[in-house]
């Protein structure tokens, strides 16, 4: 049985936001998030009961991210200061703008591949279906993206040494 749409929002809101941030950067992610759930709300009654709701949302999010990028007609990665307030939870990396900047610098396919693989938990086959190309190519893009990201974002221990 399909859940009320509010449950869909409650369950997938965070993943969709992470995906939007990874594809667009923090600043434009809100627009894409909003457009994604609006489009999803519109189409939800027609979604087959057996559909993977998260994969469906991520597919919409990718499309909306492209729309937002086109509408903005500018570099996908804004460099100005981001409006997000630091979290009080104190978890390292939360709303970490440095990290999103690194993600934004990855080549498009790598950025999308690691987003879908590691934030949306999609299989390489699902990613290949979205990006076009072979499953191997999707796997490679995810692995290369991760490698690049690790190199440029080595994490807390060495963070002070970066830049």
């Amino acid at each position, binding site marked *: 049985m399909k859940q009320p749409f509010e449950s869909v*929002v409650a369950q997938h809101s965070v993943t969709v936001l*992470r995906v939007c941030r990874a594809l667009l950067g923090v600043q434009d992610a809100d627009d894409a998030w909003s457009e994604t759930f609006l489009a999803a709300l519109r189409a939800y009654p027609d979604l087959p009961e057996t559909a993977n709701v998260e994969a469906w949302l991520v597919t919409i999010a990718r499309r909306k991210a492209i729309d937002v990028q086109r509408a903005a007609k500018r570099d996908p990665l804004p460099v100005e200061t981001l409006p997000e307030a630091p979290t009080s939870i104190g978890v390292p990396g939360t709303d970490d703008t440095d990290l999103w900047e690194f993600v934004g610098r990855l080549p498009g396919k790598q950025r999308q591949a690691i987003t879908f693989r590691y934030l949306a938990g999609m299989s390489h086959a699902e990613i290949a279906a979205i990006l076009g190309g072979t499953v191997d190519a999707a796997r490679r893009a995810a692995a290369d993206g*991760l490698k690049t990201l690790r190199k440029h974002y080595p*994490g807390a221990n060495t963070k002070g040494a970066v830049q």
Partner: protein
Amino acid sequence: MSDVRNDDALTALSAPIDPETLARLHARLEHEAHAEGLVDVAYTTVDSPVGKLLLAATTKGLIRVAYAREDHDRVLENLAEKVSLRILRAPKRLDDAARELDEYFDRRRKVFDLALDLSLSRGFRQLVQRYLPEIGYGQTRSYREVAELVGNPRAVRAVGTACATNPLPVVVPCHRVLRADGSLGGYVGGVDAKAILLELEVAA
């Protein structure tokens, strides 16, 4: 996935999102979905002397008031099945209902003045539910009297069912219908809730 476990970069990517950010995005969705006419059912929950109440409204009016013991998640699933899947927590549409309930529980209101959507009930049940608001504040009727008043004196049991399945308790006052001997009878919100409402109305 052991190759990426505890990876700092990935941990950071999937770090928690500030709850305020999510609340802000949800509010924006409520606003934009409403503007585009996409919210078939809006709902919210309010606190009351009879526990947390779920209020849900279509564009026609208030369609559901539910007690916590009815299980709000199940009530929403039921609305999704019977009315529309386009259900959103969007309190604004329920502002009037919430305010009038507040006034009622505060003994400042005796009659509800709200648009109602009675489409969850049909036939005789809906007929009874339409009649119930005519039982005035602080008054009571027996199931038999209600059956007589709706022109079907032998339908006592059906009146009981109509009260038990009232989708709009409190607002549509099925709590004012008692057994012929004056005992409370059943209630969708539990007998305690029925007693609280009757006491509240008597004391006013």
